């Protein structure tokens, strides 16, 4: 398996110098590499950060702006534009044609010409909103200032309206600052999707109190702030479950976001073994959370024996009625060189039914795909890990984040650029099939495996009638045959390009899996019905992964031969398979053949006669 992967990565590997060839685990293929377009040597002001997906576009944040990649063909990502707009850390989200960018470095103003200024002078930090309707020329639509800027942010949909979204601004005070001191409340921005220029702060609440976090007494004489939890580092929302997990430096929180403007704390945990609560990932059932501990903030190598197996690691917590219960830890098993930076960083759920698998970045430790299904015994399934540079980067370096999208893993390397990896193990067949329309990894979708269960077909005529939209040619077939029929649906019946199954309901099996047309039509598709068929009526169903549970239905008639009421009818029946014109044609052919034979015979007889006379 490893040998196959090595052979297949040749095109991508060509981009890397020989001494930077990565180690790649089983069932993983390195299919593409693209350089960081902003990179300026080892200057950390041009490093990549997080990723977001909208349709065929991948948005890659950078401390100097963001890149838009066309990933319609995942093995050939194309740079559509590199948007120059400095300010770290460039955490990104994408909603339709809008891109949100987090800035928590104090900038001279809100423009893309701004420069970095000290915290203690007048400055701007907050959320930038871009319209990428023309991805070649993104438009800067709005800038929303918040008191501590935005280290990361989280898009939370409004259950009541799809016309706007809420954005949670995750930020904390860093100490002496003009605007950002003390405990930073969670500020929530409301973004009207059709009028992003009207985006504004819609709510503000404190997730902590003086008892459990930074309070007035926590500022010492020199002015320094000496309590850790002054705000949150990152929040992952799971809207379908009305939950969110907040990683708030010294504390981990489980939130209810049933009312997105008024999240409430369901559980708060501190753990002596967890130094810096960085981020969290839910399993699909929302029964477990993996928290990342970014010990050392990315400036050191914690993936070495000196740090052991549970520092700078992942910790799994069970969501139980009484709160959160720790159930296990995972640490990257490959020791990294002390020339590298390595610690648990950002990742996302790999959607595999019945399993809890994540892909996660470990900075220069690379990518690790881990199965947490048994939280007490996590197992690494595969990895991607470059060797060190031969020297130590001055600041943080390596892979910031990695997320699965449409069966591929996209990894954002701070200096190197973008890596695309394909999960080749059959275990990931369902993940590859999932039709993502977009993905903000910190807004976890609920994965539904609609294609794994046979559709339910109503039996009453009234319920069936509106579903019988499937065109079948021919609509009725003969008993005892194994016929092939052609089926189709008109435009608008399915979601554009969605993966679509054709189900044969008598055996509840899939006869074919096809892709819907861009206009939502099912192009005429030939399917062989499993025969021999007995007389009767059989259901054929078409269901798309995205438009499910909606189905299109057709009843195939298998028609028995008509009974024979009279001898004349029986005579007719013998010819039943032959149309009149065919019989007439045969008669004409027979007559012509007779004529040819007769004529030939005459010629032969005439020759014989001549021979005899000569």
């Amino acid at each position, binding site marked *: 398996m490893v040998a196959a992967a090595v052979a297949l990565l040749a095109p991508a590997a060509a981009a890397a110098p020989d001494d930077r060839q990565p180690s790649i685990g089983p069932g993983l293929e390195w299919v593409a590499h693209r350089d960081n*377009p902003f990179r300026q040597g080892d200057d*950390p002001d041009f490093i990549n950060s997080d990723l977001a997906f909208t349709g065929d576009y991948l948005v890659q944040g950078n401390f100097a702006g963001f890149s838009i990649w066309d990933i319609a063909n995942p093995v050939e990502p194309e*740079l*559509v*534009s*590199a*948007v*120059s*707009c400095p300010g*770290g850390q460039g955490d990104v989200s994408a909603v339709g044609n809008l891109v949100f960018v987090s800035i928590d*470095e*104090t900038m*001279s*103003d*809100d423009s*893309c*010409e*701004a420069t*970095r*200024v*000290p*915290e*203690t*002078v*007048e400055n*701007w930090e907050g959320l930038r909103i*871009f319209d990428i309707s023309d991805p*070649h*020329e*993104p438009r*800067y639509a*709005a*800038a929303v200032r918040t008191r501590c800027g935005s280290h990361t942010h989280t898009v939370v949909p409004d259950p009541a309206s799809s016309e706007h979204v809420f954005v949670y601004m995750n930020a904390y005070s*860093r*100490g*002496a600052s003009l605007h950002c001191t003390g405990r930073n409340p969670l500020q929530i921005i409301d973004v009207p999707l059709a009028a992003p220029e009207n985006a504004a702060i819609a709510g503000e609440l404190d997730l902590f109190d003086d008892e459990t976090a930074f309070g007035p007494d926590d500022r010492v004489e*020199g*002015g*320094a*702030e*000496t*309590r*850790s939890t002054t705000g949150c580092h990152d929040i992952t929302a799971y809207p379908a479950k009305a939950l969110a997990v907040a990683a708030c*430096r*010294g504390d981990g929180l489980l939130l209810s976001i049933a009312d997105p403007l008024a999240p409430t704390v369901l559980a708060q945990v501190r753990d*002596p*073994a967890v*130094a*810096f609560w960085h981020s969290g990932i839910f399993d699909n059932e929302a029964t477990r959370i993996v928290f990342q501990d970014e*010990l*050392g*903030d990315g*400036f*050191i*190598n*914690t993936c070495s024996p000196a*740090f052991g197996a549970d*520092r700078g690691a992942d910790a799994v917590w069970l969501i139980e009625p009484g709160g959160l219960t720790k159930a296990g830890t995972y640490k990257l098993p490959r020791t990294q060189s*002390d020339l590298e930076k390595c610690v648990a960083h950002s990742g996302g759920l790999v959607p595999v039914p019945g399993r809890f698998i994540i892909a996660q970045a470990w900075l220069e430790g690379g990518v690790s795909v881990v199965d947490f299904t048994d939280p007490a015994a996590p197992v690494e399934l595969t990895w991607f890990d470059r060797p060190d540079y031969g020297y130590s980067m*001055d600041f943080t370096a390596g892979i910031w984040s990695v997320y699965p999208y449409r069966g591929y893993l996209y990894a954002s390397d701070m200096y190197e650029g973008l890596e695309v990896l394909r999960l080749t193990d059959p275990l990931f067949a369902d993940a590859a099939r999932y039709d993502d329309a977009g993905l903000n990894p910190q807004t976890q979708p609920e994965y539904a495996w609609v294609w794994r269960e046979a559709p339910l077909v109503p039996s009453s005529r009234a319920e069936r009638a509106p579903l019988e939209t499937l065109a079948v040619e021919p609509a009725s077939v003969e008993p005892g045959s194994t016929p092939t029929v052609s089926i189709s649906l008109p435009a608008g019946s399915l979601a554009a390009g969605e993966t679509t199954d054709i189900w044969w309901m008598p055996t509840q099996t899939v006869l074919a899996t096809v892709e819907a047309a861009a206009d939502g039509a099912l192009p005429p598709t030939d399917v062989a019905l499993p025969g021999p068929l007995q007389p009767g009526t059989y259901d054929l169903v078409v269901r798309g992964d995205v438009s499910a549970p909606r189905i299109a239905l057709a009843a195939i008639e298998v028609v028995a031969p008509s009974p024979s009421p009279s001898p004349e009818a029986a005579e007719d029946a013998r010819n039943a398979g032959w149309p009149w014109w065919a019989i007439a044609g045969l008669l004409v052919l027979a007559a012509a053949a007779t004529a040819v034979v007769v004529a030939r015979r005459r010629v032969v007889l005439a020759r014989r006669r001549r021979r005899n006379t000569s």
Partner: protein
Amino acid sequence: MTMRMPPRRGSITWFALIVVLGACAVSSCTPGDVDRTTTSFVTPAPPGGSEAGSRGPAASDGPAPDTADESGATAADLAFMSAMVVHHEQAVELAELAPGRVQDRELAEFADRILAVQKAEAEAMRAWVDKRRSRGGASAGHDHGAMAGEISRSTFDRAASLQGPAFDELFIAAMVPHHRGAIEMAEARMAERGDPAVTRWARSIATSQALEIDRLLEIEARLAE
């Protein structure tokens, strides 16, 4: 059947034309801005109501041309980093005394983590300082910045002579002000101009030391019960 190849010069001309037409087709270029096809860089105009331009020239963070070296580091950066190396080494030295003396299990674990983290951070910062010193330049002086929360030699000596609860108490009593000092040093650097990457590092140190102070105070409160 045979086919004659077109003359070589003709094929080159056609190839060039196709490349030019192809490039212009994707970018709707005019002869003057062919560069866009190779760079793809755009700088959007500010949004409506932008604050840009409403302020006077700001004191930019980052390299001040007269004081920064070629990597963008200023004298403030070098002073901060070299002082922080020494400051971290004090935390390491105290933490190294813990094995065999510390009694509380959580504090033992905590001291061991401080040892690992601050040792690694000190090494990283020392490498950063050495790299810039070896390059020479205006900012490559040997003066350390001010160090706050310093642990005195007598405190180290006393810690070395203590065992059990007495050691635990001294460890916390010395480490908390030591870490508060680190936060003060980081905040002092954040108020100055310098390499933005050093600013981020200073923020990170302030954050992680505040986390450790939190934990130490929690342990102290528990031990006092």
